[in-house]
């Protein structure tokens, strides 16, 4: 059944397509897909994905088994991540997204190229359906994560923990800080946040040894998240990389830092009604008043009335850029203060 040896003509491509289409249609799992790649090319095949802790290897005789070591960057591969292109390449997959490998160096022959493309597409379909980041043994995984974000952990402990999480050396990752205290480590390229999950601060992309710093940034970013409610408008997830100067602000505002007058004014304004904070947030974060009105689902003239009222309560004008920036910082400080109290 090894197409590369038996049948090198054009009809092989059709059969490869038919093979993986049939697997997908019948709901085959990842091991069957990797096996198809191995059997059709006569070459060991592998699927790696540090984020979801998948590391599958199948030999050309169909036997599955754990890989002996990490993939070789010179091997043929194709991305099986949801967001990546489908072209074959010799990438190292170092970003940690799902990658399908054939364990031999390039260039790929026509059958191998077709197998890589179709097998990766089939794997992508399966991974998209089963997308989820919950570790199967949360207690053990959380312990391993905590070792990796701890600046004081020994290199040996870090190696152990990385192995437990299935993270190969050279993988690019980010630390994620969740409201409630849980830490996560996710592949740098694939870091998405589940809508409806806890608030999340997402750290900078680093190698494994940089995780303590990434974690510190994730914690800072978490302090600038918000519930997204009327009382606490704002983003539920914040990326440290996007904070810019706000990171400096967050890192230097502590529980001992005195409140500034703008913060007191904002609290006072908020008391006037549940419309205040969402309105101010919309004005501070959208490009125009028309856009703000659309976000709030109110008429433009309603918004104008609200702004006039809020300006009287706040004590400074907020329609022009300077006033809007000042408002933005006041709202950010408000979020920081709330999380100093709540998240510790």
């Amino acid at each position, binding site marked *: *059944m090894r*197409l590369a040896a038996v049948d090198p003509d054009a009809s092989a491509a059709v*059969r490869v397509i*038919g*093979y*993986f*289409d*049939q*697997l997908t249609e*019948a*709901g*085959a799992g990842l*091991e*069957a897909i990797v*096996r*198809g790649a*191995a*059997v*059709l090319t006569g070459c060991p095949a592998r699927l790696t994905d540090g984020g979801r802790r998948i590391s599958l290897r199948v030999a*050309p*005789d*169909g*036997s*599955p088994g754990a890989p002996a070591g990490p993939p070789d960057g010179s091997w043929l591969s194709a991305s099986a991540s949801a967001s990546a292109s489908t072209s074959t390449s010799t990438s190292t997959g170092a970003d940690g997204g799902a990658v399908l490998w054939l364990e031999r160096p390039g260039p790929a022959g026509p059958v191998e190229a077709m197998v890589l493309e179709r097998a990766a597409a089939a794997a992508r379909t399966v991974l998209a359906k089963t997308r989820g980041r919950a570790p199967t043994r949360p207690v053990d995984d959380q312990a391993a994560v905590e070792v990796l974000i701890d600046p004081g952990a020994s290199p040996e402990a870090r190696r152990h923990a990385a192995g437990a999480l299935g993270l190969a050396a050279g993988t690019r990752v980010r630390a994620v800080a969740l409201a409630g205290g849980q830490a996560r480590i996710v592949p740098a390229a694939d870091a998405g946040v589940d809508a409806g999950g806890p608030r999340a601060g997402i750290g900078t992309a680093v190698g494994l040894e940089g995780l303590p710093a990434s974690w510190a940034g994730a914690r800072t970013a978490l302090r600038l998240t918000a519930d997204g409610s009327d009382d606490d408008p704002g983003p539920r997830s914040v990326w440290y990389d996007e904070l810019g100067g706000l990171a400096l602000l967050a890192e230097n505002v502590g529980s001992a830092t005195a409140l500034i007058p703008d913060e007191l004014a904002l609290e006072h304004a908020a008391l006037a009604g549940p419309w205040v904070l969402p309105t101010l947030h919309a004005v501070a974060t959208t490009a125009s008043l028309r856009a703000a009105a659309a976000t709030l689902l109110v008429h433009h003239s309603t918004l104008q009335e609200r702004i006039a009222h809020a300006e009287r309560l706040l004590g400074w004008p907020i329609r022009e850029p300077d006033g809007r920036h000042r408002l933005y910082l006041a709202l950010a400080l408000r979020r920081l203060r709330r999380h100093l109290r709540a998240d510790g």
Partner: protein
Amino acid sequence: MTTTSAAGTAPDGSAVPAAPPPFDPELAAALTVIAESIPRVFTLEMLPALRGANSIMQAPTSEELSLGGAFEITERQVPGPAGAPDITLLIGRPSGATTPTAALYDIHGGGMIVGDNRTGLLPMLEWARELRAAVVSVEYRLAPETPHPGPVEDCYAGLVWTAAHADELGIDPGRIVVAGGSAGGGLAAAVALLARDRGGPALAAQLLLCPMLDDRNDTPSAVQMAGLGVWDRASNEVGWTALLGAARGGPDVSPYAAPARATDLSGLPPAFIDVGSAETFRDEAVAYASRIWQAGGVAELHVWPGGFHGFELMAPQAAVSRAAAAAPLNWLHRVLAD
């Protein structure tokens, strides 16, 4: 062209569900690749292409059969049935064996109409290597040129010779297992019946892999799988008719031609029977095992979900194929244990 029957009753009166069991995903995918090289329906016109030196079935060489020197491969001409030509036995003896070994007496498959004593022999040798056992593979005359009882009598004669020459072959006569796949499985079951009814040779066990047991060819699975997969009902009819002629399906068929016809399945050696859930032979294989138990006998039955006929040979790398290839060896270890 056969058509699948709609939901209703089969000729034997049982209900027939309309939709066949699905193929295993990996096997279904394999079929898309190999289906073009397998005839949809076997006909007698294809036989020249499937037999002899020009056969597309590509018999392995003696060197390949030796499994890298694990076996000494020889061929012997031995007497056939009385009044019939000599038969050829291909003998594989484990290299360096110093004490008498168990033996697999292998009967090849091919629908009664094709194949030779090298067909399907490699998996048998691989099991025998694990067991440190010998393999003896008989070449029997094929239908339609040789109708029943020629083929089964050739197989029985080869077994008689093997048991009688056990010492010379380095075989323990108390540990001979008759084995075969498809038509070979049917012939193996028939040989076990003959050995019981003729008082010998003794058999330790019978290994029946997706066996071809029932010339009536009208079980629910035969009807259900018509036109699908490999060796469907139409091909099966070609094979049985070649063996039995006009008598096929009628009242006068011997159990030594079609073991499903046997009325007494007591007193048989322990049986291993396997079959796929999505092949013509499913129901007759399951029935044979059931009747062995009803007669108080010993049998192990495996029905592989989504397996088509011969799947473990045609797509050996699939997960279900690997399981199906491991089960007979596992059983052989147990039945041949000292």
